[in-house]
Structure formats: structure tokens, C-alpha cells
């Protein structure tokens, strides 16, 4: 029975998603011009769906206080209220409004994941660019160091470091960013190496150009495209990792509204057939799917243009 209901809703959701994605593509193509217009018009439905979802999340995150009917941390009712007109998604284990916490969670969870990814990228790509461009002992040293760090599974490493440094948002961001920057380093180094062997870089070196000019003018413009796609992928990983840690009770700490910990706090409801705790988990999944769809499209476009 549960399965059939699930199947029914899955079909309804899929149909709605397709319709919305189609509408969003029309809209996006209508308001843009030139190259952008062409790209958007020919975008697959999955990609336009992804872009639509990302846009919605952005709006919700920015306008959270306006949208949410109740404050983030206020206990407004008794615990585990069902869905009512007053509390759209009911209340949580402490009696806080579930819908409002979902809305604030967008800001907190996505914001923290984004900040972490950005930091990981800053560290990883700068070091990767330097290692590949300078070469020699710097490259060897950094690469071996990263090899060793990557020999420890990232979640396990994160757990170890969180045990030591404790679980505050700042340590969480720093720990995940450092661990994830090793992956960014690998990629940016590999991509940069592909560019560094090009004759135009050799020509610039022989011209007597300095390191800063080499990296910013000759190399960076040629590695941005793959790095941007990687940013999307890394964001997904970081987002999932932080959610997993929060779910385990070791990430973003209460009373901050956060999707991972919301699932944990209210998980008992699921065994009673109430799907409310699945909503924050679904919100995580939806954003990750959306980003993946867009990245996939970009990668496909990049490979298609090359051939």
C-alpha cells in the first residue's frame, strides 16, 4: 500500500517537474539574448529543471525571514503537531514550526556548504595551479602530502578532526574545506598540467614572463571552464558531507535550523508513517540533483564543443 502511494506521488512529481522545467526554459530563453539565449533554448529539460531549482533555492535563502511565518528557533506549539493551516508542515520534536525551519535551513545549510566549497576551492586551486606551474620540489611535496591525506576516507578523517577540534560551525567549515581541498588540488593540478605543456606557455616562459603573469593571463583563462564544472560537483559532495555529519549529530549544531539535523531530530516519525522528516532530506537531494543536472549539461557541452 505504502509502495503504491509512493509510486503515485512519484509519477505526479515527475510530471510536474517536467512541466515546470519546460516552462522555465521558455521563460529563461525569452529573457536572454545572443549566445546565452541559444544555450538556454537548446538546454535539455534536466538542465533547465536544475537551473529552476537552484534559482528557487537562492530566492528562498535570500528572503528567508520574509517567507518564514515563524522565527527560526521559537517554540510555537506542542511537539509533533500534524500538518495544519497554521503550521503547514506541523511542528518538530520541540514544538518549533517545521516549515519555518525548512526555510531557514535553506539559508543555513546551503550557505555553510557554499562557503565551505568556496574555501576548499580557494585553497585547492591556488595550490594546484602553483604546483603544476612551478613544478619541482613544490609540486612533489604538495602532491605527496595530498596523496597521504587522500589515503584516509574523507568522512572518517572529518570525524577524527571533529573529535579533536570539537563541533562548531567554524571548525566544521575549516575541517571539511581542508579535506575537500585535496580533491580540488588533484583536479586543478591535472587540468593545469594539461595547459602548462602547451607551447604558448613555453613561449611565455621564454619571453621572460613572471609567475603571476603566467598563471593569471596564460593559464587561468584556459582552466576556468573545467574548474567551474568541478565547483558544482564539489559543492554536491561538500553539501552531502555536511548533511551527513549534521545527521550524525556532529555537524551544524542545534538550535540552528539545518536539514541534516532536522532529519535526525524527527526521524522517529517515519516509522509511524509520517513523511515530514523526509522533507528536509528531500530538499538536500533535490538541490544536489539540480546542481548535478546543470554540471552534467555543462560538461556535455564542453566535450561536444571540443570535438
Amino acid at each position, binding site marked *: 500500500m505504502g509502495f503504491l502511494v509512493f509510486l503515485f506521488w512519484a509519477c505526479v512529481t515527475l510530471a510536474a517537474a517536467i512541466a515546470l522545467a519546460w516552462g522555465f526554459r521558455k521563460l529563461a530563453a525569452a529573457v536572454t539574448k545572443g549566445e546565452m539565449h541559444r544555450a538556454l533554448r537548446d538546454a535539455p529539460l534536466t538542465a533547465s529543471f536544475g537551473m529552476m531549482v537552484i534559482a528557487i533555492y537562492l530566492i528562498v535563502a535570500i528572503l528567508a525571514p520574509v517567507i518564514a511565518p515563524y522565527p527560526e528557533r521559537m517554540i510555537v506549539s506542542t511537539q509533533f503537531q500534524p500538518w495544519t493551516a497554521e503550521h503547514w508542515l506541523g511542528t518538530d520534536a520541540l514544538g518549533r514550526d517545521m516549515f519555518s525551519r525548512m526555510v531557514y535551513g535553506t539559508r543555513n545549510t546551503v550557505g555553510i556548504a557554499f562557503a565551505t566549497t568556496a574555501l576548499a576551492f580557494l585553497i585547492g586551486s591556488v595550490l594546484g595551479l602553483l604546483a603544476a606551474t612551478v613544478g619541482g620540489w613544490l609540486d612533489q611535496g604538495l602532491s605527496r602530502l595530498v596523496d597521504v591525506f587522500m589515503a584516509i576516507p574523507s568522512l572518517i578523517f572529518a570525524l577524527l578532526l571533529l573529535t579533536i577540534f570539537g563541533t562548531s560551525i567554524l571548525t566544521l567549515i575549516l575541517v571539511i574545506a581542508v579535506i575537500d581541498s585535496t580533491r580540488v588540488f588533484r583536479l586543478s593540478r591535472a587540468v593545469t598540467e594539461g595547459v602548462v605543456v*602547451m*607551447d*604558448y606557455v613555453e*613561449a611565455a616562459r*621564454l*619571453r*621572460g*614572463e613572471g609567475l603571476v603573469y603566467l598563471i593569471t593571463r596564460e593559464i587561468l*583563462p*584556459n582552466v576556468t571552464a573545467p574548474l567551474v564544472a568541478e565547483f558544482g560537483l564539489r559543492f554536491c559532495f561538500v553539501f552531502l558531507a555536511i548533511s551527513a555529519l549534521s545527521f550524525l549529530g556532529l555537524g551544524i549544531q542545534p538550535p540552528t535550523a539545518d536539514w541534516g539535523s532536522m532529519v535526525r531530530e524527527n526521524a522517529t516519525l517515519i516509522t509511524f508513517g509520517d513523511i515530514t522528516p523526509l522533507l528536509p532530506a528531500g530538499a538536500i537531494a533535490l538541490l544536489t540533483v539540480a546542481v548535478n543536472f546543470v554540471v552534467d549539461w555543462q560538461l556535455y557541452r564542453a566535450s561536444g564543443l571540443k570535438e
Partner: protein
Amino acid sequence: MSDKDILLDIKGLKIEGKAGDDWLPIVNGIDLTLRKGEVLGLIGESGAGKSTIGLGAMGFARDGCRISGGQILFDGIDLRKASADKLRRLRGKRIAYVAQSAAASFNPAHKLMDQYCEAPVRHGVMSRAEAEHDAVELYRKMQLPNPEEIGFRYPHQVSGGQLQRAMTAMAMSCRPDLIIFDEPTTALDVTTQIEVLAAIRDIVEQFGTAAIYITHDLAVVAQMADRIKILLRGDEIEEADTRTMLAQPKHDYTKSLWAVRSFQRETQAAPEGQPVVSVRGVSAAYGPVRVLDDVSFDIYARRTVAVVGESGSGKSTAARVITGLLPPIEGEVLFEGKSLPADYRQRTRDQLRHAQMIYQMADTALNPKLTIRKLIGRPAQMYLGLRGKALTERIRELLHLIEMEPDDFIDRLPSELSGGQKQRIGIARALAAEPRFIICDEVTSALDQIVAEGILRLLDRLQGELDLAYMFITHDLATVRAIADDVVVMQQGRVVEQGTKAEMFAPPHHPYTELLLSSVPEMDPDWLTHLLEKRSKQGMPAPGAI
């Protein structure tokens, strides 16, 4: 000709390739007939569609391509209408294919013999034992060393030239009626190429196999083909039997192809004063591997030194030593009599400025994200301190110098240029530094012949106008003949012979120079025959033994 003799009859063949969401024509309606035992040469520059036609003759289109029109009749069978299974039974058995890169086209996981036997056994032509026996026979006919044993090696254990012959033997395994040769010698050195050409021609003649021989090299096809068909961007230009085509080309395009080999610059006055660049007793190594051994030569102003050799001869390494990318383990490089620091990072800005470089692949030599203004402007800005209006003026001047209209090109990206135009920008970038000396590293070998000719003429003119010294790295003796004043012949990291061009091209030669010179195919259809006769008379080693 009687219809009975016709093996392959293609009419109005159209093939399209996918570009994004659109299908663009690659081949626009080609007719082609081939009689039994006849060899047809397909000639064209890159993008002419010759490989696509070759595969089309097997009823095959690569991923992203489709045969969109016309008829392909092979021995009366319509390949476009034949079922996939019927096509499969023809391929390998009655129509075989020899690919450009044998190293990539042999499966690295299986021994040569297993790959040889696959077609005859699977097509039910002979048993495994018969096929193995037959393979040894063919390997012997192809003059492969150790024919008994070579089949039991993996592809990576066999050299390029031998692999190419093994692939031809494999194509012959079912004694097909037709073989498609797709640039089988393009990736090989000249001295290796000749062995493969001789072996292929021999075996095709012996078995009376019909063949389509695809190449961009006129002199090669002249040796191999009975008839030649010239293609340009998917269209046929003209077709005639080989001798007629060589003697009396009709179409202007064909004539221009023939004419490119005629450029030869005037003999220059003897060198005066001190050389611009002197390489003195230079030895260099990559790790423990010594790649240059006691190399010395001089380059004078207004003169061109051609450094000639096959792959692995060390000619590009010599350039890396001169530019300072690879510090030598012995010897030194002098610029106008003064020693240059071995590492480019220790050289002064002026020392860097006076030695410029033009690369083989203009695609990788120009940053795809920078406009021509930036590409050419940067050296002028950096070395000569030009800014603003003066800089723009200089860029325009440089574009005029390389015969490109500034207004049309100055703000374009490299991707918006043709191959020849890119190479011209590479030249302009070198000139922007106002150097004394330019290294040209195989600058014409990636270009189609007509375009290459234009680049050579341009370089020649610039040298006279700007008093430049050139070092010209090349494997192509035709280029040497066209542009060199002095020649340095290299083999395995050593200079085997050097002198003026006149001395080099007149006997007596060093044996290696002799081998190199005599291996360059000529437009004479009898050249290969005569050469092989001469070599066997002189007791030169048989091709297979090298």
C-alpha cells in the same frame, strides 16, 4: 572497360557529419569506379573527406557520421541496402582496411598472430593452423624480420614500421578483393616509409588485389596508384591515370599542388663576420639518457641553417638547448660571440628577446583565450616598452608584414583563423620582439602544401628585409631544398654531416645522408622501382633488415 571487371562502383556518395545538432556535408556526391586488381589513389589535403570515402567504400561510417545518399555497389552487392550481418561477412573477408596508426589499431591485449588469425578463422576461410602457417608466409613476403617468431609478440613489442607491415599482412589474411589503405605511411620516418611502401606494393601486385590508397603525399601515391583522383573539401577535382595526371594536370587546383614543390630561394652570399649563434660542443641528456652528443654548428645573419633528421635524431633537443629550456651537460651556446647562460631563467631580457621561436603546431602555440592584439602586442610591450597608440601602430605594422589586413584580424581569437593564418600570427609574435635569430621548429609540417609554401615564401622575404638568422628544424628534405643555405644532418644525437646546401645535395654523401636523400619519394612513378633496383645492386641492406 567491361562491366564484368568492375569491382567497386560508387555513385553520388554523400556523407554527413554531426556538428552539434546539425548535419554538415563531408562528402558531396562522389563517383568512383575500381576494376579488379586496380589501385586507385585518393589525394587531398586535410578536410578533403578522403578517409571518410575510404570507410564509405566498406559501407561503414564512423560515430557521428552517416552515409546520406548515393549508391555503393561492391561486386554487384548494394552495400547501403545490405543487412548488417551481410556487411559484416564482407568486411575483413572481401574488403579489408589498413589504418593510419598501426600502433593504435592493433589490440594491445592480444598477440599479432591471434589478431592475424581472427579474420580467416572467424570468416571460415581457413583453420587456425592453416592461418598461422599462412601468416608466417605473408610476414616473410612483407620482409618482416623473424617471420616465424614475430607473430607471437604483443603489438607494443614491435616497431612502428614493422607493425604497419604486419597490419598489411593481416589485411591480406583472407585474400580480399579490395584493401583500403588509409595513409599507411604518414606516421613513419622517410627511411622506414620506403620499406613499407615497397612491401605493400609488392604484395598488392602479387595477389592482384584492388586497392584504394589514401594519402596527402603526391610523390607517394605516384609510386602506388594506377589512377589518381583528386579531392577538395568533399568534391572531386579531377581523375586520370597516374602518368597523365603527373604530366598534364588539367585543373588549376591540381596544377597548384604540383607547383608547390618548385619554390627555391636564391643562393645567398657567403657568410661574413661572426655568427649570430654558435653551438659549441653541446651534449645534453634527459636524465641518464644522452640525447645530444658533441653537437656544433654556426648560424649567420641573413642565412638559414636547416637541421635535418628523423624522429629521435635530437634536432628538437638542440633547439631546447639553444633557447635555454634544457641546460646542456657539456658545451655552450654563444650569441654574437658571447656565451649565453645555460638556463633561460638566468638570461637577460635582451638575450631572451633576440632568440625567438616559431612552433610546429600553431594551435598549441597561441593561447586560445587571447586576441591577436594581445598575442602580438605582448612582446612589443614587454621588450620595447610600447604603449597605447604606439603599440597599436606596431601591431598593425606587424600584421601588414605578415600579409594580414589589420582591421579584419586585430581583435580576433586564434579559433577564428585558418591553420596558415595562425602560423602567420606565430611568426608575427616572433617578429614583435625584433630579434636577430629565429628558430623555426617544423613550422610547415602541420600545414597543407599550398599553405606551407606561402609560409616559406613569407619567411624568406622577412629574412631579407629584417636581416634575420634562421635555424630551421625539419624532417622534410623538400623544405630543406626550398629554404636552406646550410644543412646540418643529425642522427641519434650526433651531427653526421654538415655543409652548404650545394655540398649536401651533391655527392659524395655520408651513408646516412645518402639513405635519407634517396628515401624521399619523387614525383616520378618509376622512382621506387628504380631505387629498389639500385639498392639491391649496391648491396644496401634489404628494407626489412633495418
